[in-house]
């Protein structure tokens, strides 16, 4: 007999009437757009698919919904396989990477990689991608993590010069020229420099976010990094020249890939010699960047998919620096070390230095990936 308690518990999960109405309404609207697009003459612009996504920052909801019609694509950084294949982004053209097997591919660019700038397309078929960003001195800075409450109070001491006010003006109706307006952003707040980091790389938005539950305010500081429209070559260009990791890592925690994927906060402290970490970081600084994007391959019946990031053989490191900030690294079996905020670009380092850290931080070598 099946476990009645599990069945009874699951019975509690069902959408409210209001939720049903919302979902069905959006679905039907999408269907009408699709039908209108299919029947419309060529050259007639189809309405953008509205794919509203609620971005769960944890304490603040409605103010941070990022809703984009058309599509915001960050070629070479974020994006879906549909986006890349349908639009033929500049990144795909300049960073030919996908191997014939559809697994991780590496670019052969002579070790120099240009990450293109943010581009907004108007292709209605492209799935919208959710991104938090601010425009500063013509550059687009994208989300690199947030600090809340007590954590934010500590980070507050790092705030440098006030640079301006983020307008929160970018929404689903924004056109490409919105992205050229200084301090245009997806949510509002005071923009500051972060001490110890060049403003050509990092700024932050500081705000008192209002909790939906009780109206209480909580301090939030969001870091935003400029990781597009830049040229990088070795890991040093990012991990040292921008993030300044050498000699500044105070502690390291890690999550297994399973926990990371399930948002289970089972952090564990890394326990390896400092010499192991130093050797690892040396190799990371020397390592060449490779562009690892590979499209998700869906079989015809949507039964399964695979991409570079589907492997279970990953490790997730959280470096706490001496200034109290956190840097998240993603390690993928085979020597790939990536900065979580950067996306598809990894440095590849030799096995011995890589495995010493990877294995000590929950990394696996499963053959059934």
């Amino acid at each position, binding site marked *: 007999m*099946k476990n009645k308690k599990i069945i009874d518990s699951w019975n509690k999960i069902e959408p409210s009437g209001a939720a049903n109405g919302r979902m069905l309404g959006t*679905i039907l609207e999408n269907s009408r757009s699709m039908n209108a697009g299919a029947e419309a003459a060529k050259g007639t612009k189809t309405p953008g698919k509205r794919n509203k996504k609620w971005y*769960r920052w*944890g304490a603040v909801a409605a103010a941070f919904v990022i809703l984009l019609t058309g599509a915001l694509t960050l070629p070479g950084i974020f994006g879906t396989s549909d986006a890349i294949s349908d639009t033929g982004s500049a990144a795909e053209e300049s960073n030919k990477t996908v191997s014939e097997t559809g697994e991780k591919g590496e670019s052969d660019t002579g070790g120099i990689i240009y990450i293109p700038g943010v581009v907004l397309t108007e292709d209605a078929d492209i799935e919208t991608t959710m991104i938090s960003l601010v425009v500063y001195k013509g550059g687009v800075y994208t989300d690199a993590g*947030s600090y809340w409450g007590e954590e934010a109070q500590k980070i507050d001491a790092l705030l440098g010069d006030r640079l301006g006010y983020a307008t929160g003006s970018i929404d689903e109706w924004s056109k490409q020229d919105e992205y050229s307006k200084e301090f245009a952003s997806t949510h509002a707040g005071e923009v500051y420099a972060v001490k110890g980091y060049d403003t050509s790389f990092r700024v932050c938005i500081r705000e008192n976010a209002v909790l939906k*539950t009780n109206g209480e305010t909580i301090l939030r500081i969001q870091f935003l990094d400029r990781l597009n429209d830049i040229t990088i070559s070795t890991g040093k260009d990012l991990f040292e020249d921008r993030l300044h990791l050498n000699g500044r890592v105070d502690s390291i925690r890690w999550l297994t890939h399973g926990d990371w994927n399930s948002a289970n906060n089972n952090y564990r402290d890394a326990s390896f010699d400092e010499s192991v970490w130093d050797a690892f970081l040396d190799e990371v600084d020397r390592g060449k960047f490779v562009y690892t994007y590979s499209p998700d391959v869906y079989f015809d019946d*949507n039964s399964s998919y695979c991409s570079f990031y589907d492997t279970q053989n990953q490790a997730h490191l959280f470096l706490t620096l001496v200034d109290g900030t956190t840097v998240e690294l993603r390690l993928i079996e085979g020597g790939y070390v990536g900065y979580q905020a950067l996306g598809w670009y990894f440095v590849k380092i030799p096995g011995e230095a890589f495995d010493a850290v990877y294995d000590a931080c929950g990394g696996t070598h499963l053959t059934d990936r």
Partner: protein
Amino acid sequence: MSNSLLRTDKEIAEIYARHSKTVYRVCFAYMKNSADTEDAVQETFFRLIKSGPAFESEEHEKAWLIRTATNICKNSLKHWWRRREDIDSFYDLQSPDEIKTDDVLNAVLALPEKYKTVVYLYYYEGYPGKTIADILKKPQSTVRNYLREARAILKERLGENYDEE
């Protein structure tokens, strides 16, 4: 059953009425909150509208939706832009539609991803292993292993709350 790639509002609403709870429950098992679950449910039906497969039966239709919902949720959870915020350290998102969970459900929701849909289909939908294997396009042995491993985890976490009756 419509064979057209373009479905009418009525057809879509009927499919939604038939399977929305199932899709919602599958999505909630991964996303764990109502807001993200709604997004995933919508995305599942967007795929249905876009792909427009012709279904042989309502069971075929349901199986397709379950598989698609599962893939969408897994894909969403692993995408670069999805942050793993430590929301337990401060106030959680609460909307009027937020689902209230209990210890038993929390234990199920905390299972590793690969077990979730199998557990849902077995316990809630009451499908036998072979049917689950057909729905998810996985070997029967894999489904058996997932169930066995999931049961072991649930037994450990739920203790006396977990009994096969």
